[in-house]
């Protein structure tokens, strides 16, 4: 194995793992869970090795099939993509390791289907993160979307209609993105991000350029569930099985947010109009998402509306721009991915159980819920606090004082809905005694502690992301 292959391995490992699932299921279905765990852990290890390698020796570029860019497809593992890749790979690995019991309870003999779809989703998200080619991003965007449609629909009943509405909205989003890619290709004749970055500044007066950028951003805004294009989120994530939401809701919309960050900072020439739109949409998302979350009675819908609100914060970070805004956006992406994976895993623990079995309070579950919730609301010492602090600093230095008011209002509302969510956790049982069932509670707790550790290590993380931002530009 050579150094350059490190860039593509985090895509290939889960992809091969997904293909192995149905093959292994031909003779035994008991292998599904261990095989998925092995795949996820391998891809996470490769991603971590990748981030260390990139930090030590610089950006890795891999030409797929030996076709040199800009003609061929390029895979780029620079500090920004390596960091995001490591975060998503670790979170998805924790989720896959932890969902064994609920997946067994919900899917029974169909567990290999669940694992195949989750691994396919993870492979596609990794592909979106490392791809250096606009059209390639579209393909991975759709592979991840198609696997999440199927995962959400696997809830049956009302989840089916939620999944269908998501298919319709998701397809509109992807098609708009594709249309935008077409517009940029028509004026530049290239799809390679680095190549586009060099050619686009000379073309900013073209109306095709402005149309193309608008299509790209509207398409991605649908995919990241940004206000006012968030209509599909509460239904899709609220009605999906929590075992599926632990992966799909945790990293799905954030991957689209990452692509927006990539476009704004590494592809498109800087413009102020885009920032203003993202700031406005993000601020409205923070407030409407949080207000709606407070009003929910169903915990999964509450988390879905919280995601809309948190995506708003990320959009504000991207809209503020500059190194500070981008740093805040990356910390927020990390923080919310950790928090949502942990909180949905907690919900997965009691899903599909009879009401009578949910009786005894579980201290670890409560602790995990409280810590993860603190991160969502932005309380120290979690990563959520440092991410939002970073956002306030960026807003202040950019001269947008009103953004600070919006962010604080969103956090106060988050305290209310997180209190309602956590209070519900006094009623969660810990009746399973087998250690592998207890792993389910260890995972959210681990994620919660990870969130705290990331919060305490925020100076290091900040330096890493700041270095990454410099490297990415």
């Amino acid at each position, binding site marked *: 194995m050579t150094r350059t292959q490190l860039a593509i391995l985090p895509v290939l490992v889960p992809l091969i793992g997904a293909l192995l699932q149905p093959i292994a299921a031909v003779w035994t279905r008991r292998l599904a869970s261990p095989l998925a765990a092995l795949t996820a852990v391998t891809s996470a290890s490769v991603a971590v090795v990748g981030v260390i390698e990139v930090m030590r020796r610089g950006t890795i570029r891999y030409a797929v099939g030996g076709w040199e860019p800009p003609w061929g497809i390029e895979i780029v593992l620079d500090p920004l993509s390596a960091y995001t890749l490591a975060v998503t790979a670790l979170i998805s690995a924790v989720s896959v390791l932890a969902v064994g019991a609920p997946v067994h309870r919900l899917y029974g003999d169909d567990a290999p289907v669940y694992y195949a779809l989750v691994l396919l989703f993870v492979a596609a998200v990794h592909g979106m993160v490392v791809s250096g080619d606009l*059209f390639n991003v*579209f*393909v991975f965007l*759709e*592979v991840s*979307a*198609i696997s999440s*449609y*199927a995962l959400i*629909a696997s809830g*049956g*009943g*009302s989840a*089916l*209609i939620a*999944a*269908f509405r998501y*298919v*319709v909205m998701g*397809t*509109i989003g*992807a*098609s708009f993105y*594709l*249309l935008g890619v*077409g517009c940029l*290709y*028509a004026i530049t004749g290239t799809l390679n991000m680095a190549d586009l970055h060099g050619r686009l500044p000379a073309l900013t007066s073209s109306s095709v350029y402005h149309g193309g950028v608008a299509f790209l951003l509207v398409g991605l805004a649908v995919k990241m569930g940004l206000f006012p294009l968030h209509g599909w989120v509460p239904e899709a994530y609220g009605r999906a099985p929590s075992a599926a939401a632990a992966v799909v809701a945790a990293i799905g919309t954030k991957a689209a947010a990452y692509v927006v960050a990539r476009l704004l900072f590494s592809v498109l020439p800087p413009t102020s109009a885009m920032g203003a739109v993202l700031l406005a949409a993000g601020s409205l998302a923070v407030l409407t998402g949080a207000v709606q979350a407070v009003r929910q*009675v*169903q915990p999964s819908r509450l988390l879905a509306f919280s995601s809309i609100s948190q995506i708003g914060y990320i959009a504000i970070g991207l809209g503020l721009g500059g190194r500070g805004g981008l740093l805040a956006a990356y910390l927020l992406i990390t923080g919310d991915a950790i928090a949502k994976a942990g909180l949905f895993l907690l919900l997965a623990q009691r899903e599909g159980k009879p009401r009578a079995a949910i009786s005894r309070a579980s201290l670890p579950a409560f602790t995990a819920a409280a810590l993860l919730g603190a991160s969502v609301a932005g309380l120290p010492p979690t990563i959520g606090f440092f991410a939002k602090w970073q956002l306030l600093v960026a807003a202040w230095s950019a001269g947008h004082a009103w953004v600070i008011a919006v962010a604080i209002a969103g956090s106060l509302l988050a305290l209310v809905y997180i209190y309602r969510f956590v209070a519900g956790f006094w009623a969660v049982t810990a009746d399973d005694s087998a250690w592998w069932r207890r792993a389910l509670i260890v995972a959210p707790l681990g994620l919660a502690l990870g969130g705290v550790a990331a919060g305490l290590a925020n100076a290091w993380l900040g330096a890493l992301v700041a270095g990454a931002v410099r490297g990415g530009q």
Partner: protein
Amino acid sequence: MTAYPYWIAIAIMCLGLHTMMAHRNLLKKAVGMTIFQTAIILFFLVMSIKRGATLPIVSAGVSDPAAYMNPLPHALMLTAIVVMVATSGVALAILVQLYARYGTLEEDAIAQQIAGEDVPAA
């Protein structure tokens, strides 16, 4: 006038988008989705058209690259068609399940039944 194929593609696109948004029948939404995606494929293919150019296969005596049509949009759209087929497949599979469960594909009728299911659970 050379831009008119683009306008045709955009007109078909709007037709598909309208079908997806306005119709209450889920199967018609799926049909609209296919029309919408096909229009985008048409949009890309129009870009590669060049009058008087030949097929993008290297042939003896033609050394000027401008004499060939651009093969890349076609290659891209082959991939996009695969994506489209997979999306339609998942959409139709969900519709089959919905019909088996609720006995209708009218969105309002299904929403009514779901509202009925949700109330006792809450």
